[in-house]
């Protein structure tokens, strides 16, 4: 059975989550038809590890409050602010506020950074295999941006599964990585509909895909898998079947988070 790596705990990198603080929307970027990124200025910004998340709390005039957790999309090199990419969930009371109401200047409460094993810094090294499904790409994007800030010091590969090309978050930025010499390999797979001339994968993640990509990136030091539960269960099982030892695999499952 896999042992747990407690080195980060021993190093004291997770000393505390801190108090609720004031978060102010600084800018809004439309990523896709159902994902927006909010750059949020924090009154008490602190360093974090890529892959961590924050808790968000909204308060209605009658005192009703709702809390949700969102992964940080920006890298720790962006000081003073963090980016939150929020996918619109049908009927979701918090995501619909972000999508339908929030604009620069709006204020809410935020707490964090939070989270332990699903984190990566350049000191952890590579090769690095990142596997994202849907909005599960968000914490992986923080890792890639942190990686970029350190000139892509280790081999890395992102396998990113989306329903259609219109669902791909950060498409332009991911394409720009492909044109750099040392940048990560980005493999997209579109599971429902692919445009004419599409040369990427067109199927759900399977054993052959994982085997081929592992051949390309090499024996990974760490594998991070994030997405809906069934996606993560499948991808993690395929990596284990491909011979990756279980203690190298870190997962985060996105439940419904309205």
């Amino acid at each position, binding site marked *: *059975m*896999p*042992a*747990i790596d*407690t080195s980060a*705990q021993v190093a004291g990198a*997770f*000393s*505390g*989550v801190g*108090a*609720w*603080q*004031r978060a102010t929307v600084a800018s809004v970027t439309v990523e896709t038809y159902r994902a927006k990124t909010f750059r949020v200025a924090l*009154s008490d910004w602190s360093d974090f590890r890529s892959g961590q998340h924050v*808790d968000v*709390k*909204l*308060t*209605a*005039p009658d*005192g*009703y*409050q*709702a*809390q*949700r*957790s969102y992964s940080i999309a920006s890298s720790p090199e962006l000081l003073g602010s963090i980016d939150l990419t929020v996918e619109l969930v049908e*009927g979701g*009371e918090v995501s619909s*506020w972000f999508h339908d*109401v*929030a604009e620069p*200047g*709006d*204020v*809410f*409460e935020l707490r964090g950074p*939070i*989270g*332990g*094993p*699903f984190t990566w810094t350049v000191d952890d090294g590579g090769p690095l295999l990142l596997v994202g499904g849907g909005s599960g790409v968000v914490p992986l994007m923080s890792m890639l941006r942190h990686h970029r800030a350190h000139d892509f010091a280790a081999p890395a590969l992102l396998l990113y599964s989306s329903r259609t090309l219109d669902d791909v978050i950060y498409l332009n930025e991911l394409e720009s990585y492909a044109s750099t010499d040392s940048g990560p390999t980005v493999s997209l797979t579109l599971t429902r509909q692919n445009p004419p001339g599409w040369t990427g994968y067109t199927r759900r993640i399977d054993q052959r895909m994982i085997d081929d990509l592992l051949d390309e990136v090499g024996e990974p030091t760490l594998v991070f898998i994030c997405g809906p*539960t069934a996606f993560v*269960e499948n991808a*993690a*099982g395929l*990596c*284990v079947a491909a011979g990756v030892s*279980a*203690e190298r*695999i*870190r*997962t*985060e*499952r996105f*439940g*419904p*988070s*309205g």
Partner: protein
Amino acid sequence: MDPAEDRSNGDTDFGPRVTTRGFVGRARDVDQARLPPGQYLERGFPVLSYEATPSVDRADWQFSIETAAGSASWDWNQMLELPQTSLTVDIHCVTKWTKLDTTWVGVSIDDFLSAAGLELFSPYVMANCYTGYTTNLPSEDVLDDRAMVAHTFDGEPLDPEHGGPARLLVPHLYFWKSAKWVRGLQAMDEDSPGFWEGYGYHIRGDPWLEQRYAGD
């Protein structure tokens, strides 16, 4: 624009309460009295684990309790021969969801102890799991029928992704204390953080006191 701030409604950690412009929230149709602070009602059953789901075969399964006075262990069939307890409870995950009226079948920690003629005198226990996951608990939180090793959820064998073949169930604490793929309890004379507790999560985790993180 300026946020609406209302000093009469209680302070935040950093000053007057922040009311978020334009936030209404969902209809207040659920029984709010059953939702601990900061939680929302979830009708599905989300899965949260940091590790790949392990495959634990019932034929190899063992559950043990280690105390200063002695130890005991049970295999799968021996566990099924102990008194079976059915429990319908609300469960609360620190990631904010609460699920109402979940039904579990398993063996209470009290029944394991009495079958072995053991008593838990130490003030704390550490739950150990097949993945290496750990979580610490005050002994009083696992006694008096407050905790069980659960193998059946809503009438079906517990799925591996939810901790099957068997998980610890401590429903009055946040759900990370209900360790999946549990392998044993080890008595401790002093409290010691388990896995998530070492990452800044609360040492006890009472959802009604909103003990999410250290210091809450």
